[in-house]
C-alpha cells in the first residue's frame, strides 16, 4: 500500500495555483463544461450507489434506506434541478434604471467567484460534500473539496470517484485532517463553504478574514421542538422520532435536540413516544438495524458524559443503555433535566432527547430566545395564532411547523443558519447564488449630458440637482425654464 502523500503548505499552494490557472484559462466558465461535470456527478449517484451505501455503513452504520434517501436521492434531485435550471440561473437579470441615470439600461450578471474551497462534515459525508460542489460547479468555479476524516471510507470513496469522473484540472479532493485543512486555509480562496461546528466555524472565518474571503458557514445548534397539546399526537411523535433517530441517530445539524411542552401534556407525549419507538425499533432497539451507530468513541464518550452527569442520569424515563464496543446508545428520553446541565448547554448530536416541561406553552418562547439561535426550530400545533407568533418571533435558520427536517429537501427554500447556527444559505438556486458574484452592469449613453454634473458649481445647478434627486418632472421643467 502506498504511503500517504504529504500535503502541506507547498502542496496547497501548488494546488491553488493549478486551479487558478484553469479558471483563468476559462475552463469552468462555459455552460457545456458545467453541464458535463454535473452529468458526471449524476453518473456517480446512478452507478455507484451500492459502494456509497457500503461506505456509509462502514463509517456510520447508516441504514441503507437513509443512505439511499438522504444522501443519494437528495443529491440526484439537486443535480437534476441544476441541469434543468442552469441556463436560467446563468442568464443576466434586468434591473430598472431611474430618471437620475437616464438614459441608461442596467443588468446584474452572475459570474463565478474563482477558486473555491468546500469543507464538509462526517454525518452526511456524501450529501454535504457534493451538494455544495454542485453549487460551486453550476456557478462556474474551480473547486477543492475536503471531506471529513471522521468518515474515512466515505472520504476515500469520494476522492476515488471524483478523480475518476470529474475534470481534474478544476475539481479536486484533498483528504486529511487538521494538518491538511490548516494548509488549505492558509491559501487565498475566492469563497469558503464550511459545514460543521460553531467552534471550527470561527476558525474558518478568522482564516478567511486574512484574505477577505467570503464564507458560507453551515453550523448547528440546539433545535427545539415545541409540542402543543392541540395537535395530532401520534403523527407528531412519529415525525419527531423519525426526524431524530431516523436521521443518522440524532447526529444531524437540524436534529430535534430537545422538546418543550406543558407539564400537563408531557406524560402523554412520553407515553406516545415509547409506544411508537417500540413499533419502529422493537423491544430491543440496541439490536435494531434501522439506526446509525455513534460515529466514534470520542463522540460516544462525549454523549456518555452528558448522560452520566449528576441530576441528569436520574431523569432518564426511557432507554439509557450504552454499548461502547459497538458504539451504540439506545434511544433515550429524559424528563426535566436542569437547564444548566451539560446536556442542555451543548448541541447533543446523538440519540438523547430531553423533554422540558413548562407551566404554559408561552414560556417556550422565552426559553428558546434565551439561547443561541439554532439552525431549525420546530412547532407541532393546530393553533393558527401560535404558528404565526412562532414563525414571526422565533429566530432560527429555518422554522418548520408540523414536521421535522423536511425543509432541507425543498430546493425553493434557502437552507442556512443565523447567529451561532451560521451565515449564508444554499440549496436550489441559492447554491448557485452562494458561489456567484452578482456584478452590477450599467450601460450609459454618451448623449444626455448635463452641465449640472460638473464644476464650477452654482445655485442653479444645485436646484436642478435637487429636482433630479426628487425625480420630480415638474420641478425639473421649472428649473430648466428658469421658473424656480
Amino acid at each position: 500500500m502506498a504511503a500517504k502523500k504529504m500535503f502541506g503548505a507547498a502542496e496547497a499552494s501548488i494546488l491553488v495555483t493549478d486551479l487558478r490557472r484553469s479558471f483563468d484559462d476559462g475552463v469552468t466558465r462555459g455552460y457545456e463544461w458545467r453541464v458535463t461535470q454535473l452529468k458526471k456527478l449524476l453518473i456517480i449517484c446512478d452507478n455507484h450507489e451500492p459502494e456509497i451505501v457500503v461506505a456509509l455503513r462502514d463509517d456510520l452504520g447508516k441504514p441503507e434506506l437513509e443512505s439511499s434517501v438522504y444522501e443519494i436521492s437528495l443529491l440526484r434531485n439537486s443535480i437534476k434541478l441544476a441541469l434543468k435550471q442552469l441556463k436560467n440561473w446563468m442568464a443576466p437579470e434586468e434591473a430598472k434604471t431611474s430618471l437620475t441615470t437616464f438614459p441608461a439600461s442596467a443588468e446584474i450578471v452572475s459570474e463565478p467567484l474563482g477558486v473555491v474551497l468546500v469543507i464538509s462534515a462526517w454525518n452526511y459525508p456524501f450529501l454535504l460534500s457534493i451538494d455544495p460542489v454542485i453549487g460551486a460547479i453550476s456557478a462556474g468555479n474551480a473547486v477543492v473539496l475536503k471531506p471529513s476524516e471522521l468518515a474515512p471510507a466515505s472520504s476515500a470513496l469520494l476522492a476515488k470517484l471524483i478523480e475518476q469522473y470529474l475534470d481534474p484540472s478544476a475539481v479536486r479532493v484533498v483528504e486529511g485532517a487538521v494538518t491538511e485543512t490548516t494548509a488549505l486555509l492558509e491559501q487565498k480562496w475566492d469563497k469558503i463553504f464550511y459545514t460543521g461546528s460553531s467552534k471550527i466555524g470561527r476558525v474558518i472565518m478568522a482564516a478567511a478574514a486574512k484574505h477577505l474571503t467570503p464564507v458560507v458557514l453551515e453550523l448547528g445548534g440546539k433545535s427545539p421542538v415545541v409540542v402543543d397539546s392541540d395537535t395530532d399526537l401520534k403523527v407528531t411523535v412519529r415525525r419527531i422520532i423519525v426526524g431524530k433517530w431516523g436521521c443518522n441517530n440524532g447526529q444531524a445539524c437540524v436534529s430535534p435536540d430537545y422538546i418543550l411542552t406543558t407539564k400537563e401534556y408531557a406524560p402523554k407525549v412520553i407515553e406516545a413516544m415509547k409506544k411508537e419507538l417500540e413499533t419502529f425499533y422493537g423491544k430491543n432497539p440496541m439490536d435494531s438495524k434501522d439506526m446509525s451507530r455513534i460515529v466514534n468513541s470520542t463522540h460516544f464518550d462525549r454523549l456518555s458524559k452528558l448522560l452520566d452527569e449528576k441530576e441528569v442520569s436520574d431523569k432518564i424515563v426511557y432507554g439509557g443503555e450504552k454499548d461502547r464496543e459497538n458504539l451504540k446508545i439506545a434511544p433515550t428520553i429524559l424528563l426535566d433535566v436542569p437547564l444548566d446541565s451539560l446536556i442542555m448547554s451543548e448541541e447533543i448530536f446523538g440519540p438523547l432527547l430531553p423533554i422540558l416541561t413548562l407551566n404554559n406553552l408561552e414560556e417556550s418562547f422565552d426559553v428558546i430566545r434565551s439561547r443561541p439561535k439554532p439552525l431549525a426550530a420546530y412547532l407541532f400545533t393546530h393553533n393558527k395564532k401560535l404558528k404565526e407568533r412562532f414563525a414571526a418571533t422565533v429566530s432560527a435558520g429555518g422554522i418548520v411547523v408540523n414536521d421535522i427536517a423536511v425543509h432541507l429537501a425543498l430546493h425553493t427554500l434557502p437552507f442556512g443558519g443565523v447567529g451561532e447556527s451560521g451565515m449564508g444559505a444554499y440549496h436550489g438556486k441559492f447554491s448557485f447564488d452562494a458561489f456567484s458574484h452578482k456584478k452590477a452592469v450599467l450601460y450609459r449613453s454618451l448623449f444626455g449630458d448635463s452641465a449640472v454634473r460638473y464644476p464650477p458649481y452654482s445655485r442653479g445647478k444645485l436646484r436642478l440637482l435637487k429636482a433630479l434627486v426628487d425625480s420630480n418632472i415638474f420641478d425639473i421643467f421649472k428649473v430648466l425654464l428658469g421658473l424656480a
Partner: protein
Amino acid sequence: MEGMKETVEESLREMRETFASGRTRSLKWRKAQIGAIYEMVKDNEDKICSALFQDLGKHSTEAFRDELGVVLRSATVAINSLDKWAVPKHSNLPLLFYPAKGKVISEPYGTVLVLSSWNFPISLSLDPLIGAIAAGNTVLLKSSELSPNASAFLAKTIPAYLDTKAIKVIEGGPDVATILLQHQWDKIFFTGSPKIGRIIMAAAAQHLTPVTLELGGKCPTIVDHHTISKNIKSVVKRIAGGKWGSCSGQACISVDYVLIEKSYASSLIDMLKPTIKSFFGENPKESGCLSRIATKQHVQRLSRLLNDPRVQASIVYGGSIDEEKLYVEPTILLDPPLDSEIMNEEIFGPILPIITVRDIQESIGIIKTKPKPLAIYAFTNDENLKTRILSETSSGSVTFNDVMIQYMCDALPFGGVGESGIGRYHGKYSFDCFSHEKAIMEGSLGMDLEARYPPWNNFKLTFIRLAFREAYFKLILLMLGLKR
C-alpha cells in the same frame, strides 16, 4: 477608556432590550424613523454643508449631489417601498409535499454596528443606517474621527430626531472601534480600506457575526478612442468629473487610472487640461470647487507616491502640493511605471495616471494583474470589447460610457468582490443586507405516509425512491401493488 467601555456596554444593553421589546418590528416605527432622518437632513442642510466644507472643503453642490441628495433619495425609496420589501416571499413546493406551504420572511438580525468613513461622512453613515432601520434592527453608528465636524453633527443631531433607545451614535477613532469590536453584534457594516476590513472581519469571526465590507481598489477607466471619438468631449468631461469633481479623487469608486492607446494619449491629455481649467479656473486651490485632502498624513502619502523619481518624470500636468492647506493639485501622469507604488495601491487622491497600451484590448490584461476593484469603467461602443470586459474581468460593477453614476442606480447592488469587499447595499439590497432570510415551512398533520417510518423494508425504500423522483404514476402503481 474605561468610561468608553461602560458607555458601549450600556448602549448595547439598551439596544438589545429595545430590540427584544419588539418595537423595531413595526413597519410604522421604521418608516417614522426613516422619515425623521429625511427631516433631519432637510432641516439642517446648511449645517451639514458647513460641516462638510469645514472637514473637506466640499462645495455645497457637491455635498448635496454626493451626500444629502443620496440620503434624501434613499430615505424616500425606503419609506415608499418598505411595505413591499417586508412581504414574505412564497415558495412553490413540489406536489409530493402537498398540502405543505413554504415561504421566506425577512427578519432583522438584531443589534447591528455601522462603521462609516470620512470621505462621505454623511451619506456613508446615514445610508446604511436607513437600511438597518428599514430591516427592523437597532443600530449603533460610529462615524469617522477624520471628519470631525460631520461626526459631531451626527452625534448631536441624530439623538434629537431619532429613537435614542434604538439608534445611537458614538464618535471616536481606532481605540473606540477596538472596544466596539470586542463585543458581539448581530451584523457589522463597514466602509473603509481593505486593510481595516480584514481586522473587522477577524474580529467578527470571534462571534460568528456576518459582515458587509464596502472597501475599495484601483478603479480603471478604459478609453477606446476608436469607437467613441465622436463624443470624446463628453468622455473627457465625465472622466475629469469622476476624478476631480467628487471629493478630489477620494472616493471608493473614483476613476483611479486611465487606459488608452498610445497614439491617443496626448490628445486626451490636451483635452483634460482645459477641462480641469474650466472646472477649477487658473488656481484650483482658490476655486472653492475642489475638495481638500482629508489630513496632513493623507497629503504626505500622496506626496510620497509622487516622490518616486520615475513617477516625478511622468508628471505632465499639475504636481504641486501645499501640505498646510491640505491641497494637492489636479495632476496627470503619463505612463508611470506599472511597478511603481502609485500603480499598486488605491490612489485616493487627485492624481490621474494615464497608462498607454498598443492595442486597447491589452487593457484587460493589465486590469487582471490587479486585485478586483469596486468598479470598472469603459468608454467604448465596441460590443466585442464590452463582452470581453464583462466576461474576462471581475469587479463589483461595470459601467459603460460613464463613471461614478452606478452609485445612483438603486436597482443595482452596490458592493465589491475580492479585495473590494463582501456584500452589497442600496435600495432593496440595503434592506436585505440587514435581514436574515428565514425559511418557514408548514406541513400538514393529516396525510401521513406510512412509508416515512421504520421499520424499513424494500417497499418503503422503493416508495421513497420513487417519491423523490416525483415519479407519481409509478408511485401509484406501487401502492396498488402493480409494481415491484
